[in-house]
């Protein structure tokens, strides 16, 4: 039975902040196949193409037939927890601070034996289901959950260490002016965030959703203009220490290609809002997030980028926009490495066209605001790092994996 999480009391300002530590994240290349699966919330192990043996730990030759054809495939998660132990002494600084720590041996229905972290409700001798999660080092680990959901399951202390659950955390939605920003504010409020800061620029420019925003529970409107370095720095200076999750909703969507859209002023706005805006947020909030990665129940947890899936493959109808999104994706990958020492995740949420005004003429399927907002919340609750929302994004992901060049041609038509 998991003890429900208690809303943390106000931080004692005289107490030193605990510095982030990480478990060992070194892995062989083959083992990073698990990292790829964990980033997307999949449970995948190597399955020998030649003899169908399911293999663990990951390796370079099949232990049944020595084949080297060992792709990662989704496999059944179910198994039995054969034995468990509780580690009470360890030389590793990360785990030393966190003992007692339960681990166990799971015999998977799919075949292999997996040493895994144990959810508090996983019982020795009982049925479990395994999940792959990214631990604070950013590498994948297996955790055994009870076969059926239990009460307050997400509040389990090990699970919370591997996820970025918004519950009791303080979130910054960087731009509340857009419908996306407003949907995010509602979704995070519903997910139990302690405060939802919503940034607004140009207070002299009214917009339709303003009244609705103010009505959302636990929303606090703050001045924030991602195109203004001073504005971003000031918000971080004043509130950075009590923001645990940043969700960058600042958007700039305009149709038009690189050759055929006349002039550069829109491109400059795209770069300033999206790419430089991201850099401003990264420089202003990155260091404080990174230093608070182990700061209790409401530790700093994540930086969420909302990215067009066309960051991965340019869509010429929205060609300049795609290119800017690609720049943001690369910057996010850099941020991932820079924030990892603090155990802070950079979450990239990819989507195709949205049901918003600047995609008005694009035919369906398009992603609705509610679906996008819920996908972001869910990604944080599950500790995912790479998320594809909606049919178009999933379609592009699959095509890209098989033949990028064909996709390049398909996007142009």
């Amino acid at each position, binding site marked *: 039975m998991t003890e429900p999480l208690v809303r943390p009391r106000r931080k004692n300002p005289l107490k030193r902040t605990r510095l982030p530590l990480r478990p060992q994240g070194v892995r062989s290349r083959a083992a990073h196949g698990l990292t790829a699966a964990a980033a997307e919330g999949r449970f995948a192990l190597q399955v020998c193409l030649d003899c169908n043996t399911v293999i663990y730990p990951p390796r370079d030759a099949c232990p049944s037939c020595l084949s080297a054809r060992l792709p990662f495939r989704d496999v059944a998660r179910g198994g039995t927890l054969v034995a468990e132990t509780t580690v009470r002494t360890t030389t590793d600084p990360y785990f030393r601070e966190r003992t007692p720590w339960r681990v166990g041996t799971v015999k998977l229905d799919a075949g292999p034996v997996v040493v895994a972290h144990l959810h508090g409700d996983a019982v020795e001798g009982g049925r479990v289901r395994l999940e792959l999660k990214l631990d604070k080092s950013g590498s994948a680990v297996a955790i055994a959950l009870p076969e059926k959901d239990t009460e307050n399951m997400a509040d389990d202390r090990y699970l919370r260490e591997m996820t970025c659950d918004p519950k009791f955390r303080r979130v910054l939605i960087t731009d509340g002016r857009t419908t996306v920003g407003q949907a995010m504010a509602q979704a995070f409020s519903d997910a139990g965030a302690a405060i939802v800061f919503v940034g607004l620029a*140009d*207070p*002299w*420019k*009214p917009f*339709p959703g303003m009244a609705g925003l103010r009505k959302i529970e636990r929303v606090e409107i703050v001045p924030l*203009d991602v*195109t*203004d*370095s*001073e*504005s971003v720095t000031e918000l971080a200076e004043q509130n950075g220490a009590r923001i645990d999750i940043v969700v960058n909703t600042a958007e700039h969507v305009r149709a038009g290609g690189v050759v055929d859209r006349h*002039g550069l*002023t*829109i491109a*400059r*706005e795209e770069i*300033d809002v999206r790419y430089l805006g991201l850099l401003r947020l990264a420089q202003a909030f990155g260091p404080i997030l990174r230093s608070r990665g182990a700061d209790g129940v409401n530790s700093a947890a994540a930086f969420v980028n909302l990215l067009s899936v066309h960051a991965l493959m340019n869509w010429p109808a929205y060609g300049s926009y795609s290119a800017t999104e690609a720049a943001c994706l690369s910057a996010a990958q850099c941020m991932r490495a820079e924030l990892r020492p603090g155990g802070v995740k950079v979450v990239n949420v990819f989507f195709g066209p949205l049901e918003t005004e600047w995609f008005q003429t694009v035919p369906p399927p398009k992603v609705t605001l509610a679906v996008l907002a819920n996908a972001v919340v869910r990604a944080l609750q599950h500790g995912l790092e790479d998320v594809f929302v909606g049919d178009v994004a999933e379609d592009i992901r699959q095509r890209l994996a098989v033949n990028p060049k064909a996709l390049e041609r398909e996007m142009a038509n």
Partner: protein
Amino acid sequence: MGVLMTVDLMAFARAVASGDIRVIDLTQTLSQEFPTIVLPPELGQCAPFRMEEVSRYDERGPAWYWNNVSLGEHTGTHFDAPIHWISGKDLPNNAVDTINVAQFIAPAVVIDCSKECAADPDFALTIPFVEQWEARHGEIEPRSWVLLRTDWSKHAYTDYAGLRDDGAHTPGPEPAVVKWFVEQRDVHGFGTETIGTDFGQGQHFNPPYPAHFFMHGKGRFGLQCLTNLDLLPPKGAIIIAAPLKIKQGSGSPLRVLALVAGGNV
């Protein structure tokens, strides 16, 4: 050729230094928070004022502090040249770098409608209103700036742009009075405290945006986002308004100064 008059410029300088001639700043500070003109989203927009610090006595530059700034030609307190509008596009010397520099110094009349504007943001300046002003202060001299004092610069930034769901609601001139200014009074240019020289709902006039259309169409100038007009006399102030010498520029942010005669306060 005429008689050569000796003008004592040093006396002018001494008078400025001593305060016998007061220098009044009619310029808003360029800052990130200052509202800019907002056009329909699918059109090109005016760049807002932004600053990026280059160094501040730190590892990026140990003994100095400086910034790179970015802004549009029409950001903040700024000057409009005739080339800015379609009606003035073919006139000679119509850009900020080709206007005769003597035209950057000119007298100004200040028409006060601040009380009317306080009651109604959609106050439109009309010919009768100006004729009433002239009855009290005398006719507007040729090649004078006409500055419309609305006290709009005293509004907080949140109200300054006057934006509602059908656009801006800020005071400005009707088409007839602008045409009259140019044809009957040979004015130098038109200046306002609001964003733009035109009435907030000026897109619905005929012609739309008459202040721009008629002024620039006749090679006259515009000044906007002015402040401190309430410190100026109705007549007699001299305006110095010299825009940046931008190649074929349509306008530029600038320092607008008013020289006013009168002893130390």
